[in-house]
């Protein structure tokens, strides 16, 4: 049985933990709102970009043009997995669920004798993957100094990815992130970044013939880097919103657990205090009786 003093110390320490988790939860809630807003602001651009790319791609397909960025990615040997995680922990299963998905993909690809390379965005994913797959790493993007994700960050990442593609370091790029389904649910997902395939995208205006200025190929080689940057941008934004949502849920849980623990410890504390008082009374009474 711990002494009264020990119990008191424990109750105080759990109380201060609860304060911290409560504060973190509220900070995450505020950041979540901000992240969601900025994700929503970026959506029209991303949607329009997708439309234009699919319109372009279908026209290019019609004239049987051949662009190195287009294809369906089948019978490719070299894969690049881009694993986007958070810079910080304490956000429930956020990071490990992405890493888990990426790991299962790595296992699948290596069993098919494909060459796998890894590029991580965010410290946590690197830490977890580094233990097992250090030799596969070709790069890491550090976002710890970026308070808000900007399109410029996404552009830099996409430029790096594209130049590696052009150098033939890989043939297919997939990005792993957490899709923001709702505040309490984030789904680890993957998305094929390169090559751009038009089979999965429906061209909404496939029967309209566009005039292109300059020609399709030139526009395509200009728009594809942009569309990749946009995809990365929206992935990073979704990830940021998911991270905050996940942290909020985790901290809410932690706060509740701390509360339960405090209740339990307080009961223990009161019980031992009561026992101590009873003990003292017994001692006094038996002392008086002895006289």
């Amino acid at each position, binding site marked *: 049985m711990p002494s009264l003093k020990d119990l008191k110390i424990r109750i105080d320490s759990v109380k201060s933990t609860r304060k911290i988790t409560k504060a973190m939860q509220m900070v995450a809630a505020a950041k979540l709102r901000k992240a969601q807003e900025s994700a929503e602001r970026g959506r029209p651009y991303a949607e329009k*970009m997708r439309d*234009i790319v699919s319109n372009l791609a279908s026209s290019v397909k019609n004239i049987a043009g051949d662009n190195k960025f287009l294809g369906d990615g089948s019978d490719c040997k070299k894969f690049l997995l881009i694993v986007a995680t958070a810079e910080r922990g304490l956000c429930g299963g956020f990071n490990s669920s992405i890493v888990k998905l990426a790991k299962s993909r790595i296992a699948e690809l290596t069993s098919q004798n494909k060459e796998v390379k890894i590029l991580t965005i965010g410290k946590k994913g690197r830490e977890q993957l580094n233990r097992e797959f250090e030799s596969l790493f070709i790069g890491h993007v550090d976002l710890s100094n970026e308070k808000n994700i900007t399109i410029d960050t996404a552009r830099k990442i996409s430029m790096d990815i594209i130049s590696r593609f052009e150098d033939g370091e890989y043939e297919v790029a997939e990005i792993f992130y957490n899709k923001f389904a709702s505040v309490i649910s984030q789904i680890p997902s993957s998305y094929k970044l390169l090559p751009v395939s038009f089979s999965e995208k429906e061209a909404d205006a496939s029967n309209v013939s*566009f005039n*292109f*200025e300059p020609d399709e190929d030139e526009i395509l080689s200009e728009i594809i880097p942009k569309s990749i940057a946009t995809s990365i941008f929206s992935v990073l934004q979704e990830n940021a919103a998911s991270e905050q949502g996940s942290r909020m849920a985790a901290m809410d849980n932690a706060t509740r657990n701390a509360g339960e623990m405090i209740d339990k410890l307080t009961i223990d504390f009161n019980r031992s205090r009561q026992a101590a008082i009873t003990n003292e009374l017994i001692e006094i009474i038996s002392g008086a009786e002895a006289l």
Partner: protein
Amino acid sequence: MTNKFELSIISADSKVFEGKVENILVPGMVGDFLVLSNHAPCISSIRPGFLEFSEGTSDKKRYFVSGGIIEVINNMVSVLVDSAVAGDKVVEGDITNLISEVNDRLSAVDTVNKDDLGLRKNDLEEALKQA
């Protein structure tokens, strides 16, 4: 009566403009062009320069854009821009910054891309004169 069409100018992190306009002058990659309503569907890339459009009244609105893509389809014009600054807010410093950025890249890349960047620099200097 003049016909109007829908115009939306969208940048990566916000909607810059949305509304009905009478015409829009676009700094296309191969040359400036004017879009009126019932324009044929087209997709074009935009070089850095000024977008100019009027909403019907005589005064025109101007935006400095640093490049992008325009899509015209069924009287819906969408302009995706890398960044846009309203014409009256354009500071020469912004454009000068862009020019120096291009200069930095010019010294770093090989000759093939040099032509492209050189053109870009010309566009920017042109825009600087208009500002």
